């Protein structure tokens, strides 16, 4: 393996050390570091806001999918009670698909929450370190000779520099993760746009025979419901056979009418 230079920690440390060695003049290090520290603190805030935005977007999608799952489930039940197993199956297939996506989205939301938490902690840590650095900077300027100051500053700057590198790393990882999620969210949106999770009756293009039949079924059962309601209000049965209550002793005839099939 090319470039295999040694142990894990050595390689990681070497990278950071290399970067920290760049600043030579302690005074420059001091001011430059402090400036950079504040700059990075702003970036971390932006990074956190970014993660929150992505999370909200995923949560929104997740909510939509949840609704679709409920809707498809209801449709599957309707279809099944009407004896249309084919339609029930079609609805269930979509429901399962939507559920799978939902699980994956929820998992991602959780991951983003972890990232967010970690960034917030890191931001706090960096803020505290920067403040400690600022204090130390003033003390060093006031009390030490140039030679002593150099040593002190260099240690302090390294301490903060490491933290900066670390926050930078945490942020980079959060951004990477967020970008992956964005790609994922877009993919889900595309599926949505293609009607993959749509409830079966609301399908636009590609509306096939099954969809049409289910639509008919839904409206047919709605008509049934309305008729049943009407009959109840009128206190009659089917019209031609007003024996609903009177003929209670006879065969338990179903009051729901035959559906046109």
């Amino acid at each position, binding site marked *: 393996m090319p470039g295999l230079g040694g*142990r*894990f920690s050595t390689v990681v440390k070497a990278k950071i050390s290399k970067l920290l060695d760049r600043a030579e003049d302690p005074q420059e290090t001091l001011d430059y570091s402090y400036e950079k520290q504040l700059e990075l603190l702003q970036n971390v805030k932006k990074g956190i806001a970014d993660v929150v935005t992505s999370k909200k977007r995923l949560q929104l999608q997740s909510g939509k999918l949840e609704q679709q799952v409920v809707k498809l489930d209801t449709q599957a039940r309707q279809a099944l009670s009407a004896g249309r197993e084919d339609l029930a199956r079609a609805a269930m297939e979509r429901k399962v698909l939507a559920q799978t996506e939902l699980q994956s989205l929820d998992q991602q939301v959780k991951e983003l929450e972890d990232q967010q938490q970690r960034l917030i902690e890191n931001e706090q*840590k960096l803020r505290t370190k920067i403040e*400690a650095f600022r204090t130390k900077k003033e003390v060093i300027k006031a009390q030490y000779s140039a030679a002593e100051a150099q040593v002190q500053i260099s240690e302090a700057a390294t*301490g*903060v520099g490491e933290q900066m*590198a670390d926050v930078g790393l945490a942020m980079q990882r959060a951004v990477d993760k967020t970008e992956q999620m964005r790609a994922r969210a877009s993919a889900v949106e595309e599926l949505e746009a293609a009607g993959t999770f749509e409830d079966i009756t609301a399908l636009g293009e590609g509306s096939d025979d099954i969809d049409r039949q289910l639509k008919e079924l839904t409206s047919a059962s709605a008509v049934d419901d309305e008729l049943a309601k009407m009959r109840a209000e009128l206190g009659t049965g089917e019209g031609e056979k007003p024996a609903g209550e009177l003929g209670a002793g006879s065969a338990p005839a179903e009051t729901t009418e035959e559906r046109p099939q």
Partner: protein
Amino acid sequence: MIVRIATEGQFEVDQAEYEAINDLDSQCVEAVEAGDEERFRQLFSQLIAMVREKGRKLGDDELVHSDVILPPEDTDLEEAKQEFTGEGAIPDSLIPGSG
């Protein structure tokens, strides 16, 4: 000895633990070289756990440099591999002032 777990924080670990940490660290590298994901995950978690357990977490206002820096806990095998060949878990470019 100061050990940093990247993206987590610094720990002061007794010098006596150095050998154990060093050993696990080397084993991690071997697992990475062998491309053994499971073994890498296991060893690396052990390494992180050891530092957390044996170490004293440094305060946020302590400004000291680390003697050892470990990659982030959630480093996967792919990132670990790149650590030795390319940018890895700690890309050079992300550190402010490096450009």
